[in-house]
């Protein structure tokens, strides 16, 4: 049983970590983890709804 961690996965947008168990040349278990917090929902609280798209666009 081999445990693999790939972090960061490249050729994507953003930050992704994959961990996997490999047994006899095959993946037997896997975990997907985003390693970056976004928080745009908190930034938008109490703002004018007509402005929301300008903030949300930056997600």
């Amino acid at each position, binding site marked *: 049983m081999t445990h693999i961690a790939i972090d960061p996965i490249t*050729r*994507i947008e*953003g930050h992704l970590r994959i961990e*996997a168990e490999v047994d006899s040349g095959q993946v037997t*278990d896997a*975990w997907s983890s985003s*390693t970056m917090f976004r928080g*745009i929902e908190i930034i938008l609280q109490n703002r*004018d709804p007509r402005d929301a*798209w300008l903030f949300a666009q930056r997600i």
Partner: protein
Amino acid sequence: MHAVCSVRAVENALGIQIPPNANLIRNLIAGAQMIQDHVIHFYHLGALDWVDIVSALSADPGATSQLAQSISPWPDSSTAYFKGVQDRLNAFVSGGQLGPFTNGYWGHPAYKLPPEANLMAVAHYLAALDWQREFIKVHAILGAKNPHLQTYLVGGMACPVDFNSQAAINEHSIAFMQDLFTQAETFVKQVYLPDVLAIAPFYLEWAGLGEGTGNFLSYGDYPLFQPLAGQTAELYLPSGIILGRDLSTVHLVDQEKIAEYVTHSWYTYANENEALQPWDGETKPNYTGPNPPYDRLNTDGKYSWIKAPRYEDKPMEVGPLARMLVAYASGQPDVKKWVDAALGQLKVGPEALFSTLGRIAARCVETVVLSEQMVPWTEQLAANIQGGDLRIEDNTLWEPSTWPAEAKGFGSTEAPRGALGHWVRIKNGRIERYQAVVPSTWNGSPRDANGQMGPYEAALIGTPVANPDQPLEILRTIHSFDPCMACAVHVVDPTRRETGTFRVS
């Protein structure tokens, strides 16, 4: 894509209807985004998992020319052209400056293409870079710039249309866009599609690998306010759900059945095993993971910044494959035609779509389908303007004094990577609560309270890994989803290798 989703959520909350021209411009912007994104994904993000750059150096340019001319009428296909590309690549390699091709797993036994197919793909990698740079001028015309277009507006769009004005969408900008859309359709049909269909036969075992959850969700998109002849649908790409890979039934989507778990995510809920519908959603960060750098996450506990969205407690895959399956099963004629053509050429049945290769093929088919709609949609916009309809926004409900004290809304769109939803609650003219459930939240989600895997996780089970030090096969399946974990923030850890860390224990 988040901009249009956000204005739709607010318009939905306040009961605002946008004029037909605003709808057409939103469709053109979204369609252009989809086409550009998919081409970039195939050539610049995904293809290098299948195309061995170094092998291209040993290709015979004459044989490459014959190969290219046998699959496509695309004019850049001479021996001299491919020799030129090979010379450029040789200069990179002999100069020790591989640039974007550094750190690939070149020579890995899972690469199967002959050198000539590799050289053709490298040539089109470079051609696609040039093409996409020109094509996205569409966004500069309709949105002032790219990325982060500036012309969205609650109630419509903020780009005036008027053939008698230099400062509006006029005959010149329409003609310019029509040229770009025509070139795009040609590029997609003469380069992207033939390349996918030429590469796929070498990797047909991947039509049986990487399936994932077997459940698919599409909100649908491209509202048709003025359907073209023969169209009856309200959305060009339909909304629907497919469960357990059963294409005989398309279920209706009810956004109230969506809820997010944080059992394995770095957030706190009052009840950690309960899922919250996004109108009642909460974002309370609670990082319990290890301090970096670390070897392993505690995957029994919380292990991701992504929540786990579920539809009636089921994990769902979203994206081009979900859209094409829902459209195919719904009988959308354009999708059906192109999916059947691709399956026929590869001599496989629809079950091959439930796979890593299926995702790549579905993304290409979707690009072809949309590339055929851009010119007619632009003609509609031009006809409206010529007919005197210059309405671009409805501002009758612009002032907060016209709004109810409390309102809630849902907006959706189909982003290149899949179903995107925004949920907003408005109270006394201000945002009380806002939640975005994005495509990569669906696809990249961790386990939920019931221990169910997310689509990336499920898709990796059974993936062959020839060499754990070079997990190319894992990248193939993950890249087939086109992950977008968050687009605007980039963090570099200078203690790590520039392009990746692999720990094998």
